[in-house]
């Protein structure tokens, strides 16, 4: 069994997809990392906002998902430290429920301070605003993948498309979760679904064993879709491990954005995000890496990343909406007071829907 999680390196990057550049849409992926102040716990997380016309704030939703995961793991850090397997499984189930609730709370707060407005739906089919107004969580729809490294276990979480891979010391690269046969044609399960708690998958995996786990990869689906064959995708894990044996992790992180650009431009066209959680002693030959916890380099070229320096508070989320107005949100008391825009929205949807029906 490996020692404490102290020293696990987490690195990653996210790039805006080639097709998103062509369409003028933002990078809807997000990722983040966190370490407890004593180095016992480490976490990597990625999220992929859906990007269909109903998910018009999914680039925010994915960041909120990363933040929700961080908050929940941070709050439970004392319990995670010494958890037995059965306790860890209970905690994982509990974490799923907490993450879903926390994400919904964060979304509700965002809606409250930045209400949906008609201009966000410009050019969209009338059915979409109606669906989003009836269920505004849809606007923020996102997947979520995370790994928490504890002294004894990897605790792995997955909701929606995207891949969690474990690379063993023998070079084997295996997906953590079985393929979900339902998810073809870019369809995915999501935090915004009413069934998201049931759809969430998790696994508690003991560290060490006959073949030691050296690397955990968290990838949004833009990565796997970039490869002609599935084996080529799994080779990504094997090749990265070999690279980590031979090169400084800092150098690999420097190369990562360009590789991701290649994945998108020559492959999927989608946003691509990759987070690597790397076993501590792979960097042993890395004198120039200055053996520093700061190996979790702040990814300056990766605008969608959230990096929490140990116990520090998270980066603030971007402000990019219209100012708050007073009024009834229609979302219940805990949503506070927002917005004349909300009722404007209803009126606009009703009017447009009626006009559309008359045209037909």
């Amino acid at each position, binding site marked *: 069994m490996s020692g404490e999680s102290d020293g696990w390196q987490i690195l990653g990057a996210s790039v805006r997809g080639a*097709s998103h550049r062509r369409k003028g849409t933002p990078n809807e992926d997000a990722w983040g990392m966190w370490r407890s102040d004593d180095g016992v716990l480490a976490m990597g997380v990625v999220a992929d906002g*859906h990007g269909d016309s109903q998910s018009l704030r999914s680039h925010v939703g994915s960041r909120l998902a990363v933040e929700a995961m961080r908050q929940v793991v941070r709050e439970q850090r004392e319990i995670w430290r010494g958890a037995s397997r059965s306790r860890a499984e209970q905690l994982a189930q509990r974490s799923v429920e907490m993450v879903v609730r926390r994400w919904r709370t964060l979304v509700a707060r965002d809606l409250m301070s930045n209400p949906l407005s008609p201009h966000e739906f410009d050019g969209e089919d009338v059915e979409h605003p109606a669906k989003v107004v009836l269920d505004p969580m849809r606007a923020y*729809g996102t997947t979520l993948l995370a790994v928490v490294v504890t002294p004894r276990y990897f605790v792995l979480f997955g909701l929606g498309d995207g891949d969690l891979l474990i690379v063993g010391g023998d070079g084997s690269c295996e997906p953590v979760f079985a393929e979900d046969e*339902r998810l*073809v*044609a*870019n*369809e995915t399960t999501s935090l915004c679904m009413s069934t998201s708690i049931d759809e969430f998958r998790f696994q508690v995996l003991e560290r060490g064993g006959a073949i030691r786990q050296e690397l955990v990869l968290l990838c949004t689906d833009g990565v796997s879709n970039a490869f*002609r064959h599935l084996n080529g995708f799994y*080779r990504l894990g094997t090749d990265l491990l070999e690279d980590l044996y031979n090169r400084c992790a800092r150098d690999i992180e420097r190369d990562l954005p360009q590789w991701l650009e290649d994945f998108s431009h020559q492959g999927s066209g989608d946003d691509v995000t990759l987070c690597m959680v790397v076993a501590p002693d792979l960097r042993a030959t890395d004198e120039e890496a200055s053996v520093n916890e700061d190996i979790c380099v702040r990814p300056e070229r990766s605008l969608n990343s959230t990096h929490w320096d140990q116990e520090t508070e998270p980066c603030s989320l971007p402000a990019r909406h219209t100012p708050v107005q007073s009024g009834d949100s229609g979302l219940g008391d805990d949503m506070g007071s927002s917005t004349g825009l909300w009722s404007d929205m209803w009126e606009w949807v009703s009017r447009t829907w009626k006009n559309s029906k008359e045209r037909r």
Partner: protein
Amino acid sequence: MGRRPGGELAARPLHFIWIADCSSSMASDGKIQALNQAIREALPHMKDVAADNPNAEVLVRAVSFSSGARWHVADATSVDSFQWPDLQTSGYTAMGEALRLVADQMKLEVMSKRALPPVLVLLSDGQPTDDFGAGLQALMNEPWGKKAVRLAIAIGSDADRQVLQRFIGHPEIPPLEANHPEALVQHIRWASTAVLQSVSSPASRLATASQVGGNVVIPDSPSVEVDDVW
């Protein structure tokens, strides 16, 4: 810069399949000639759309059906090198058998999960003379068959619109009416350009059991105002 990790990169395959009626009734009033000509004229426009969407690898093929069904163009051919061999008419309208042929290609083992939703365009001027329901069921039993963008063009007034509507499987997407060669040209061009464009760069969305065409938003079809010939 280190060597890029992982295997070969590639655009995502997008399979486009014409399913064309070439029963003997298609010989009347120049329908088959108009169909051959319309598809041939649409090809350069398809190529343009494909060129504008380099992350989709558009692969075209065709099934024809009369007294039986067969692959008219069997290999999934890059749109850049695709050529349309003229269809010849004979016999009846084995539409169900044609759908079973297509269904075989809609299995996950055949069409990889990373593919974009396939586009199936059914063109017919008559009524099926075999078990259409069984063929449609075979298609819908396959993951990609269910999620395919399914469009239909009714050629002439005798086309069975109910059957074509069942194939489409979406109440708000009716079969396109082609009662004139010009209308046929317009509809085929729309299917092979506007729809192709929409399928080429879809975004992910929530999984639902009955969603037709995955997450693809079908653009409005053109209105064609010409006098009926067929």
